[in-house]
């Protein structure tokens, strides 16, 4: 089913930390302990969505989208929703949009955006120093998990 062109997205700020560093968006999701890297086109689209662009404005930013391109763009944006990073906006506020960061129509060559997802920090971001230490105490984690010192 196509995404409505007037749909816009909100960043789930209370659940994530995010920063654009040298053209790469790095996102940490607190509840899952996952983190994400968005490079190239993914970082560009992320920036547009962050500025308040609707899905229609994002898709119209590209010169011409083929069927596969539409699927790739939808998969990327909806993937961020599935990961709990974005959610559907509920009260559109035109004044909250950052007009100078919104996309220009038809000016961008499409490259399929995608994010890289990592879970190798989960054991440190989610571990509970109270309940998951062995009898020697923190920083000695229970067997099977990593430890810090």
């Amino acid at each position, binding site marked *: 089913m196509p995404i409505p062109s007037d749909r816009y997205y909100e960043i789930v700020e209370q659940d994530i*930390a995010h920063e654009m560093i040298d053209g790469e968006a790095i996102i940490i999701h607190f509840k899952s302990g996952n983190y994400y890297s968005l490079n190239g086109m993914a970082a560009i689209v992320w920036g547009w969505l962050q500025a308040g662009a609707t899905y229609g404005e994002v898709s119209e930013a590209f010169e011409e989208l083929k069927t596969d391109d539409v699927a790739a763009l939808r998969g990327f944006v909806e993937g961020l929703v599935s990961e709990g990073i974005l959610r559907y906006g509920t009260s559109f506020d035109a004044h909250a949009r950052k007009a100078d960061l919104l996309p220009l129509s038809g000016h961008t060559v499409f490259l399929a955006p995608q994010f890289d997802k990592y879970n190798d*920090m989960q054991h440190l971001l989610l571990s509970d120093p109270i309940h998951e230490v062995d009898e020697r*105490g923190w920083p000695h984690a229970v067997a099977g998990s990593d430890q810090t010192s």
Partner: protein
Amino acid sequence: MTSSVRPLSRIYETLPGAYFREAREAYQRAVRNAGISHNVLLRVAGILIQLRFAGDVAQRMILPTLAHLIEDTKDTPQWIFHCWDDASTRSAMPMPTAEMKNDHRRNCLHKVSDRRYVAFYQEWMEVLSFIDREGEAYACYLDASSLPMYERAAPLRQVFNTALNLRGCQIVHAAAVGDNEASLLIAGPPRSGKSTLAVQCLLRGMRYQSDDLCILSHDCPPRSWSLYNVAKIREEGVGPISSELPLEAFTEGEERKYFFHVNTSFPDQILPVAPVKALLIPKITGEPISRLSPATALDGMRALLPYSISEVPTADNSGEKIILKALGHLPVYHLHLGSNSDQTCLMLKDFLRGS
């Protein structure tokens, strides 16, 4: 260890403010029983903190680690921290109930924490911390005389960190050394060589902030501050310097280590605060010569953030946000760590000078 008899009050079970007030009453009881032994002002990342102790055991165990932060000033402190221990003052620490501990994540007792008050319980070493974000905090040990080195070398971290978070700073798991102009953060997983490198730099005349935990701000450029004036050495590194330093032995897990207070042996080399020039991620190579190579921000995040959050968790994830923001302003390098520590330190000195 057994706790002394405490009043039968359960009012705090769902009320953060009431639990905080119970901590305040327990401290006041400790003062009545044991008196105030110390009342000092500390400057921590620009924040003036009055640190008050009831009884003398807790201050004897932890104040030397903070001694370099003591300031003689008439200024009004922004925070007042109170500290006591149950055993020497006979004022029971207000232990959390089983119900409170049902929602006990990353040290925080969430059932008795809210936007204003936060309670932390480090159960394995029996430390309770109560913070009113408006500027008052209480920390209680069950028995300060038997504090593990983990706390003696980095005391009151949850209390300090909560106050620091409000100023855009976070305690991070990193060594930090520098010169008069700038610092280098050295972050990585355990046994990557950062603590040993920090002590080697200290012994070769560089300025020193930390071998393990320091303060990082998210300014542009980020700044680092010394918080704990402690340096730790593994047994194999002790030989050449053991006769020159007042080393104290301790055991961490099954490993024997030694520590000393930097401000007593190297008072002029402590670097209170400096802009951070770069984040270095050390890796021991087995080669004789050390070298630097560029790394990505993602590499930097992997080296710095998870260990910092694991060591000093925050109740509201503000630590992750501060560290990530700081990384946005920090060049990151891999430090391929060779065995020639003279060459390594010279290289870092040159790097700091920009050559």
